């Protein structure tokens, strides 16, 4: 069943996919490439024009502020320790100022509630899926890392580390969202 189409569960209630599910269904985590042709602010990485950097889209849709903070700290540590990645944060949140502290670029996505208010006939899942596909192409993203309600999953971290050829234990970078 497609995650993009709301489906009825056993009880008959609408089972609407959340932001993380939409993102995972929209774009593959790995795009069979290791570096990106588009240079932009590298944040904690060394040099904007370093063509060896691998661009990662860090997707945070419908994620709580506490989880966001934990994910930012995780990504910052990952970037600091590997010096191999360039991060673009894909977010529907209002914490642009917080992201700025890390020096990362933000691709802002219209929130579900704003889209519903502006364009009631448009489906947020479809709109966001299109959006993610375009941004991945536009910024020549190599990897997509999706945060869900608990943050970044261990398996996603390990896959990413394999892709960027870094040995970095999940425990070394993972943060627990504040209660």
């Amino acid at each position, binding site marked *: 069943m497609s995650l993009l189409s709301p489906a009825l569960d056993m009880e008959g209630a609408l089972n609407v996919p959340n932001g993380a599910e939409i993102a995972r269904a929209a774009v593959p985590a790995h795009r069979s490439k290791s570096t990106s042709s*588009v*240079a*932009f*602010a*590298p944040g904690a990485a060394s040099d*904007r024009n370093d063509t060896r950097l691998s661009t990662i889209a860090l997707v945070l849709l419908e994620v709580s502020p506490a989880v966001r903070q934990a994910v930012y700290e995780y990504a910052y540590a990952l970037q600091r320790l590997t010096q191999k990645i360039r991060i673009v944060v894909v977010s529907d949140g*209002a*914490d*642009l*100022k917080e*992201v*700025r*502290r890390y020096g990362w*670029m*933000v*691709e*802002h996505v*219209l*929130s579900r509630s*704003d889209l519903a*208010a*502006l*364009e009631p006939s*448009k489906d947020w899942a479809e*709109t966001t899926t299109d*959006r993610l596909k*375009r941004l991945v192409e*536009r910024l020549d993203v190599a990897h997509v890392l999706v945060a869900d309600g608990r943050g970044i999953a261990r398996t996603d971290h390990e896959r990413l580390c394999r892709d960027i050829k870094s040995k970095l234990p999940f425990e070394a970078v993972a943060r627990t969202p504040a209660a």
Partner: protein
Amino acid sequence: MTEHQYDADIAVYAPLRGRGAEQLSVYAALKTLARAGFLITLIDTSRRGETPAFAAVPSRVTELLSVDRIFLAGPGSAFRVQTAIVFRPSISTGPRDTGVTVVADSAVAVLDGAMAKRAAKADDEALEQLREELSGTGAALRAALSVAASAVDDLPALARLVEDTELTALEDVWDFQFPSAALAAQPRTAPLDEQVPRIGRHVVGAEPLWPEQEIDVRRVLPTTADWDVRFYGPHTRLIKLLGRTPPNWRMHSVVGPRDLETLDFWVPIVDDPQAIVEDPAVREAIAAGLLVILPFEMRRHFGEGAIYASAAGVRKLARQRHTEGTLFADQSRRAVNYARERSSDRILDVLAPLGTTESLAVRESAPPAYAPREGRDRFRVAFVTSNGAGMGHLTRLLAMARRMPEEIEPVFISLSQAVPVVAKFGFPYVYIASKNETGMKPSVWNAYSESRFREEFALLKPDVLIFDGTWPYRGLLNAAAAEGVRMVWSRRGMWREGVADRALSAAVNFDGIIQPGEFAAELDCGATTRMDDAHEVAPLTILDRSELLSREEAREHLGLRPGERGVLVTLGAGNLNNISDTTSVVVEALQKLGAPWRIFLTNNPIAAGVTAFEGVDSLDIYPIVEYANAFDFTVSATGYNSFHEWVMACVPTLWIPNLETQTDDQGARSRYAELAGVGVNVEDPSYESISRALTGLTEPGVLEKMRSRLEELWVDNGASAAAARLSTLVKEGVVRS
């Protein structure tokens, strides 16, 4: 009173792809007639295939079609008009070939030299054709002799043509190419500067083709300090030719309505005679009473409207006229008279004897009013801001957005990371990363931003966007054009003196410009003061005075105890200058004041960091002006928002301008505030100068005096007027006249 029902007052037959001189005449006629209130139907007589070099209709002509009194007639349409004016240069097709039927009470044929030449060669076919096509337009046919000064030699032939076609010749030669708007009220009596002649030119339209050799430019535009050279208009290729801008040249990229008043002598620089003849700028300079120096061969075209010299003789002639005041004044008078005799307003004198003196046409349908896109029941306006160093762009647009009428729905698209503040006011928003934030190279970011803007415009389908920023991004302009979004520019003044005016040339992309006013406008000497393309409103603030909390409420919210006096320190975001040092100095100086002063410090929504001081209350409130009445005075930067908010709220202020801004002249605002007696200006934020200022400010009676002076100077918030103007532009489009 006529018994006819007129569909339009005047039908103008003219080739829209005409050559320069003919087109100037057509353009001047249309503009004058529209301004006089006539309803005009314009019938294009461009002859297909014969004017490949002039295939594009010049933008100034297409712009005229935006005037709601001029409309293009389509094939198969029919009109009853008071008068038909038939511009019939040889390059045009005959009225009958247009497929438009016009019945006129009177008609004027404006014929050019080439037509006359054909007739003079006893070209019976041409004569017959002309007679036939003109007789088709109606009764009481008259003819005017041509417009083009180049046809002066052909006047006898034209006269014969008129006679042969049995038309009645008008007394005047139709040579009304001088825009009446450009006419100087009075000729010049003396050069502007006794010591240094001012010479230069302005450009109408695109950058001309300059001479190929650098020396040919230097001959007429001297590069030595004993000349003051000024240039207005596009000039990229000119500077490229010279390699650099000579120190005595002042270059401006756009032309303001009063720029010609800054010149004594006007030189075309170009050496192509045809280009000079066709250049409307030459006529504007003559009309302004400048001493226009043209090559000798131009005398037959411009008579005593100009003076003449070879390229090598330009400086000598200008120097001589500059020195001899009588010669200068005499020529200026001759130039103005020459233009007045040929002013486009005189077209009305030609039409009056024909009985066409006022508009009698009833337009069946009003110009189409805009309807919301996508079948929506409300117009959607995208409030677009650049990133900026502070909150100015967002706050100005918020001030307008929250005053929009119910039928308009705002959505914010911003390059500012502070954009989430708009959600507090109930507005949805989208953020697009700015060039600085992405760290991309300009060319990469332009493509990126265009892609992002297009994406959002395609999704949200705004009817109109209003952009607040100094520099309209290429990506934004391209995206708006591609997605069919009309554009309005919120362009504040107070640019620093010397800041290049190139951004102003982007004005042509906008359907309207709104200029948020300036309390300190008297000290504004920036580039926007040369322009008159904007609708200016009073200074904007996000809140009206009536929306501020009362002193009691505000003090209670902030926890101010009885007997305590509040002072707020708000020095901007600190994204351009290092405000942490200044803040520390200010706080230290304030703390020395001791009781009863209690210090508050704002934490700006866009600031990269947070500063905290012991014994100082940090405030994270937007907009902080809501609490203005709690403070006895403030220590503030002089960005647009802060400045006008404290002035509006009548809070005396120690002003510390941020002198590192790219465009905004914060120093001028600060100086003006002190001159006006509503604050103290401290441009050097040292401990000594701040302490001194604070001591003066807190002396008995000083704050009260400033407050009462603020009350005297207080003006209503311009936000409602700006919102009303925007609303009109959204619903009715641009009304040009």
